[in-house]
């Protein structure tokens, strides 16, 4: 279980990106995080695995306070927390295989990995994950020769290599066409339902939230302004989260 308590993040330039944010995520949930751009979604995701150091507050993951861990302990803990990015963040010039294998770096011996050595078990695992995402025939091509949707699937395969219990997906479909959005989210849904991986996913479109998430939180200017089931987001809720001028749009 993930418990975020009174999380606040103030950037060095004084921007308050998160103000006293608290919520809980049960194991196996698909939690959507919604809010306008600049509302603090990315900051929240990165505070959970401490890519960004929180200013105050606690993050309890399976009973461990992540904010109290040493950097080395935090690195170990990150193995359980996969991350998927809006810009995919693949190493473009490396092969798909190398990108996927990189998901194992937290497990393997640092010395061997420096020579690009991964065990045959890891190679088999990588191929299995690529197959699961329908990319088995792309294993040995350069990452940047793939389309956006394919690159994001590589990103998911990389996260799966960590055998994570939690996946943080920061706007995983914001750079993709609507059709591809569904395909990516279906994969995440599959990981969530079949493997029981908890998913925290920030999304832009309410339609997608309704369709895939089991619960949602709404952020506005760094504060939680909504917590509840996706169906509970009515017009008033919608305007609180997105502002008075916002209009609902439907995607496919």
């Amino acid at each position, binding site marked *: 279980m993930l418990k975020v308590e009174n999380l606040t993040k103030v950037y060095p330039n004084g921007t308050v990106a998160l103000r006293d944010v608290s919520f809980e995520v049960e194991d196996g949930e698909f939690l959507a995080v919604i809010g306008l751009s600049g509302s603090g979604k990315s900051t929240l995701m990165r505070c959970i*695995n401490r890519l960004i150091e929180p200013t105050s507050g606690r993050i309890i993951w399976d009973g461990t306070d992540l904010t109290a861990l040493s950097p080395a302990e935090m690195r170990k803990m990150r193995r359980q927390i996969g991350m998927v990015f809006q810009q995919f963040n693949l190493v473009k010039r490396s092969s798909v295989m190398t990108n996927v294998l990189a998901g194992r770096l937290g497990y393997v011996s640092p010395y061997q990995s420096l020579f690009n050595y991964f065990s045959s078990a890891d190679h088999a695992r990588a191929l299995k994950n690529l197959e699961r995402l329908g990319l088995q025939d792309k294993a040995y091509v350069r990452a940047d020769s793939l389309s956006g949707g394919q690159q994001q699937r590589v990103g998911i395969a990389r996260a799966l290599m960590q055998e994570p219990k939690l996946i943080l997906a920061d706007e995983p479909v914001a750079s993709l066409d609507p059709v591809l959005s569904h395909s990516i989210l279906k994969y995440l849904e599959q990981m969530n339902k079949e493997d029981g991986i908890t998913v925290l996913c920030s999304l832009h479109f309410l339609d997608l939230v309704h369709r895939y998430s089991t619960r949602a939180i709404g952020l506005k200017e760094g504060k939680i302004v909504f917590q509840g089931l996706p169906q509970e987001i009515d017009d008033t809720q919608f305007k609180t989260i997105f502002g008075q001028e916002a209009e609902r749009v439907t995607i496919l």
Partner: protein
Amino acid sequence: MNPPSSHSQNALLAAVFSLCIPGAGQLYLRKRERGIGILVGALALAYLINWALANFQMEAIALWLWLVFALFWLWNVFDAYRLARGQTTYDRLGLLLAIVVIYAIGWQVTDINPDRLITRFKDVQVVFKALVYPDLFTQEGGSWRPSENFGDIIGKVVDRPAPDWLVQLGLAQKGALVPTPVLGKMAETVAIGLMATFLAIIFAIPLSFFAAHNIMSRVPGGTVIYYAMRTFLNVVRSVDTIIWGLIIVVWVGLGSFAGTLALTIHSIAALGKLYSEEVEHIDPGPIEAITATGANLLQVIRYAVIPQIVPPFLAYTLLRWDINMRMATVVGFVAGGGIGFFVVETIRKGGYEQYAAALWAVAIVIILVDYVSAKWRARILAGEVKVSAEAPKPFYASLRGLFWLVLGLAVFALCWQLSEIDLRKLLEPSPTFVKVVRDFVAIDLSPETFDTVLKQMLVTIFQALLATTLGGLAAVPFSFLAARNLMGGSALTLVVYYVARSVLNVLRSIEALLYVAIFVFWVGIGPFAGMLALAITTFALIGKLFSEAIENIDPGPTEAIAATGATGLQTIIYAILPQIIPPFVSYLIYQWDINIRIATIVGFAGGGGVGLLLNTYFSMLQYHKAGTVVAMIVVVVAAMDFASAKIRERMV
């Protein structure tokens, strides 16, 4: 200032202002840029005329120069008048008058004597003959064999007493003569270029991280280190390799080692800057993603940073290797070692046959290097990744890998030996070194020295200007012959295209410093010879750039004009020229900038200008005066860099 009451009154006032002080009328009319430009231009022209008359024998044209200057002054009055009345101005007329003065002075100052090209042609005929029949092979008893000169340049096999290891292996008697390969000056040149590139990489990589803003801004106090490192790299880079050679020679003495060091120092700065810019451009996304998997710092560097920087680093290194090989052919002029040193020696002895053969050796090697470097760069940037299905074996485990490793080590050892690397020399500089450095830093700023240096610096600038003009003018018609899209029509024109391209490639492969000797044979020592040598390299470089610009023109307009029924010439004038003139002018300005750098060193081969002065001061051990020259060169080169960048920026 009151708003003008009437046009004519105002115009008269402006004209009177401009009559008193050039540009004043334009300033009064609130054309600030124009006014300042005219004022500065008039002052510069007056200074130049005065300076040229005081320093050079040119009484014959003194009157004419002042007459043109007076016309420029009158034009400025006329310009103010027309400007005030809102009439069209004749900008080009003013520019033309200024240009006439500048070129007339340049002509005299660089001692241009076209008649010598004809009257002394027979002096250079022997050199051309030697170029056509290079002294590399001799016919002896009906069979061709490498000449002695071939041995000096490329290498030969001589009988030498057996080395110890052969004796110990029992393969030779102690003291017995065995055939031993001895490599020539060209091999030494290749070794210097390779070794300098290798050493430069080793130092440039760590330095580049200190000069990368994105990395240093995360380290406490890093910004200070960043600025210090950037400044350091820029200063080192602005001093030419040849000048570094002069300084290094004082430290470690004449020889290949000095040449290697000079090349290394300049390359470290140049590569360090390019590398650091590449580090600054890395995408932070993968770093974040790899960190999020639980990887440690080393793993993040290995998997997110290195894959991003290795290909561009390699590409820049190959480009630098190409430049280093070219510089290695001339660094010997000052530092000793390599083919440059060989050329200096042979010219001193009047050995034009050896000189001509050396030029061919340089051309062949450099064309090869150019080709290999370009090919590899293209491959790296296209970026084929090779990944095998199995976990890759460490590279030393495969036979191929082992082969390359052994070969690489052998080449490295050979280069180390040929470039005479001797680190002890670095620690034991010649006893006078400290004094020399002190002299060098305490530059001589007395008016006499300063005037002498300034005079030669101006000669150098004029040399570069005339060479750019001459080379550029010759390149314009020639570049059309070397443009594939224009010449691809028939088999005959295609042959012309290949010949033109080859001429450009061969000429381009030889550095200006190596050409100077031809013109010294031809027109004698002095700035004229240096200018002609520069004009040749300018012609080759500009010819290549121009022809590529022609090849890159948009075929749309050409098609449209041709469709109107225009002739070939009309098509060129209306569809092609408007597309190529802007890049041409931009290349020419850039080339002038480059030529000033090179003009500062042609003096080392007898090409006159500030390089000659520097050479003299060094050989007379007047290091404080040499320091003045170096400081002047650094300042002028930096100023030109800045000006040329600014002008080109404005043009696009």
